């Protein structure tokens, strides 16, 4: 039996507004419990919500960046259920008339293939507080700092057919919200959460199979693992004659399994109705145009421009535009290095990224600025240092020993490019290795590399490799 996997993702991203979606309390992460929850967030008797205009703007930005329709009229609804971290006993969300709907994102798969994934809708809602189980005396602590933080819930069409596609989509959304400056996308802090709806069906069948929802997965890796585990589980179940139950499941990364949370059939009746404390959100064409004007260059456009303007491969352009900060850094390097697109790309993706990963830093915290790196690359281009020695220079720069020029000077790393000097050294090497010269002249071409190596050793790597090659050949062949 050939099975096809069907996946839809619901992503909750916290919007990076300074204050909450319906109150003026701060949204800063990490404060002492219950120090960032005002009367409105606490759901005290008599309080009322007031909509944060910036949250609406951010949602509109997302809509425009995903070719969606930004609704000219959207409505907030109350989703009613009881839980201690939900102070009012209802969550203000959007049901029938969300602010954004009907868009898409193109994701990149292997071998240059792209696939279009539909975005059904994106709506605004408030986050709940946090429950900290087992905190004291077997009780649960409730921290309402998070209550009222704005969320944008992004729902995809069930158009992904593998965990790989799902991760690609999730990465794209993650990159986009950060490009748009609408979310910091910090998964550890809970600013970006993913629920995966997974089902399988016999290949060729039109109807969808029964789906399970895996909730609150907070890393790309876990999403991939969770989906694959769930697909395996469902297939095994179906192949052994069982049926899949529609339910909510949790992914346990330690036990490497998904397990049921609660059955969706018995789920709460949320008794949605339009919130009478809030007016419908009305957006006109002028507003949409103003938001459109404020959009930055989007990842896909930027990637295309890197290919055409900087002469990069699709792959390299893709890597460099995955994050806005990285793309900005790269372009700043190119500006200083004088248009050396490929060279800059190699260094940013290679040495720099390697050093960042090793020291667990973000590009924003790089000790080597884009300008400094750009200057170093200029020194490679103008022949002052060789590419190989540049690695040494880079390491010294990373460790704060100074600028490229200062380090080259201090360590005496200037490339030797004077023909007569090199020729003298070559003759010296050949004189000191007469046996190998004879063997080379006798036909062992491979010894050429040996001589080059010896020259490099004598010059401590500073001889210009191109000239060494040319001059060595000239001397040997003479």
């Amino acid at each position, binding site marked *: 039996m050939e099975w096809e996997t069907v996946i839809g993702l619901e992503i909750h991203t916290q919007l990076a507004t300074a204050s909450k979606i319906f109150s003026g309390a701060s949204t800063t992460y990490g404060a002492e419990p219950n120090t960032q929850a005002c009367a409105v967030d606490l*759901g*005290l*008797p008599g*309080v009322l919500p*007031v909509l944060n205009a910036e949250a609406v703007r951010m949602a509109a930005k997302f809509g425009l960046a995903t070719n969606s329709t930004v609704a000219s009229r959207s409505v907030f609804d109350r989703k009613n259920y009881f839980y201690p971290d939900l*102070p*009012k006993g209802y969550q203000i969300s959007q049901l029938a008339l969300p602010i954004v709907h009907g868009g898409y994102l193109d994701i990149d798969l292997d071998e240059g293939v792209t696939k279009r994934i539909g975005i059904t809708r994106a709506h605004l809602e408030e986050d709940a507080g946090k429950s900290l189980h087992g905190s004291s005396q077997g009780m649960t602590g409730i921290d309402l700092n998070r209550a009222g933080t704005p969320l944008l819930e992004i729902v995809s069409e069930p158009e992904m057919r593998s965990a790989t596609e799902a991760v690609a989509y999730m990465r794209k959304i993650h990159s986009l919200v950060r490009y748009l400056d609408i979310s910091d996308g910090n998964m550890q802090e809970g600013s970006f959460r993913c629920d995966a709806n997974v089902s399988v069906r016999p290949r060729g069948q039109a109807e969808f199979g029964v789906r399970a929802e895996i909730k609150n997965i907070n890393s790309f890796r876990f999403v991939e693992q969770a989906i694959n585990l769930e697909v395996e589980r469902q297939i095994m179940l179906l192949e052994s004659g069982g049926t899949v139950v529609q339910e909510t499941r949790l992914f346990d990364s330690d036990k490497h399994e998904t397990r049921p949370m609660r059955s969706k059939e018995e789920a709460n009746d949320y*008794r949605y109705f339009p919130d009478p404390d809030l007016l419908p959100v009305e957006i006109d064409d002028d507003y949409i145009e103003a938001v459109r004007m404020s959009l930055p260059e989007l990842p896909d456009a930027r990637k295309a421009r890197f290919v055409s303007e900087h002469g990069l491969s699709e792959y390299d352009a893709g890597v460099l535009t995955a994050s806005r900060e990285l793309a900005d850094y790269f372009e700043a390097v190119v500006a200083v290095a004088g248009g050396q697109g490929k060279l800059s790309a190699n260094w940013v993706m290679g040495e720099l990224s390697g050093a960042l990963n090793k020291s667990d830093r973000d590009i924003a915290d790089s000790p080597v600025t884009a300008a400094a790196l750009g200057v170093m690359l200029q020194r490679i281009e103008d022949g002052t240092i060789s590419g190989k020695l540049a690695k040494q220079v880079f390491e010294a720069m990373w460790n704060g020993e100074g600028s490229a020029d200062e380090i080259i000077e201090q360590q005496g790393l200037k490339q030797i490019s004077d023909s007569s000097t090199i020729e003298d050294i070559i003759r010296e090497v050949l004189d000191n290795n007469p046996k190998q010269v004879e063997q080379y002249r006798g036909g062992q071409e491979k010894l050429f590399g040996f001589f080059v190596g010896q020259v490099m050793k004598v010059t401590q790597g500073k001889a210009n490799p191109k000239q060494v090659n040319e001059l060595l050949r000239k001397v040997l062949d003479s």
Partner: protein
Amino acid sequence: MHQKTLVELSAAMQQGRFSSEELTRACLRRISQYDGELNSFITVTEAQALAAAKAADARIKAGTAGPLTGIPFAHKDIFCTRGVKTSCGSRMLDNFIAPYDATVTQKLLEAGAVMVGKTNMDEFAMGSSNETSFYGAVKNPWDETTVPGGSSGGSAAAVAARLVPASTGTDTGGSIRQPAALCGITGVKPTYGRVSRYGMIAFASSLDQGGTFTRTAADAAVMLGAMAGFDSRDSTSVDRPVDDYRSDLNASLQGLKIGLPKEYFGEGLDAGVAAVIEAALEEYRKLGATIIDITLPNTRLSVPTYYVVAPAECSSNLSRFDGVRFGYRASDPKDLEDLYTRSRGEGFGDEVKRRILIGTYALSAGYYDAYYLQAQKVRRLIRDDFLKAFEQVDVIMGPTTPSVAFKLGEKADDPVSMYQSDLYTIAVNLAGLPAMSIPAGFFADLPVGLHIAGNHFAEAKLLNVAHQYQQATDWHTRSPQGFA
């Protein structure tokens, strides 16, 4: 002093005839003397009142006083008052000291009004007789075996008994106008959105409005002027300048067109009440008005529509009372479910529970379309009836209630009968229109109220229409025996 109107008291204090402190003490004495039997107050804020009175006196001396400065008033216990118990008439909030002031509270205090206490009310504003309060029933000063009306029964009784010259109320389906009628005083419910709901504990969000109880329309103009106004903390608050309600009071009623809905004079209306209303209309004719028959065809749908919409909204608004962060919490809960069920089961009274059940049902899957959605559609029809009528007439009149004050306990076991007595007041809440009730006479020695409704934001016109009647008649000056 207690027979002087708010306007007269203000003038007297400005003239230095007595101080706000003396006036406040006089009110506190009367409260102490009479409230044992009436039970109109839940909390008396003596120390706070005297401090406010002294501050008011300083302002009066300095010449910076306004028309409300130094005037004692009673505040319905549904408005949050910082540092003062705010119970909403419920065991659920018996232990709740509000940490903030409602906007209305702030406005009145800034105007220099002196809050003497928080008044009794039907629990969570649900009721028409003030019999559902955790703090016991309020008695109608005109006949202490009868109800004062509800839900703002305490505020109405306090003004009727001349304990205070003014009080605040809230009106969702008639909770200011009906008690005003049964207690023989003037009650005003403004246009929806005119008075901020921030800090006014929510019953039905799309219907609730804060308003006033006074003995005259001129007094109401002063109170309303201070309470009304846009509030950025209330998204349903209307950003529209507040009219000077006092400036139009004296306009002539010559040519005024009064609409009389034929649907209001059918079955269910007491003949004695009808007679009083007829006499009042005759007075209006003398003042130069014309009475025009109109029809509000969807009147019979008002009560059912209201009793779907209001409970639905309240079922959600009251979910926050869960024993977790504030309010009543059951002792020794064994788990979360037990905490919820017992805190709410013990904290809420029967009428509140009844309405939460109705509302939950009306919003539930499978019933939402047939009940809540349908009711909201019918609501629009009811509103349209009024808007159409206002193309022909300036104001719409009728009886405020179908009968005079009924006996305590008479309708307590018949909630539907209780609901149906809201017949004349309920429609304007659904339409968001302003309306008032003014004393128009007596039947069986009990007050009868005349209901006057106007178009959106026509409060000035309503007050003018009421004031002119009060210049030509003296029903509003009558006091209940024993409180004169």
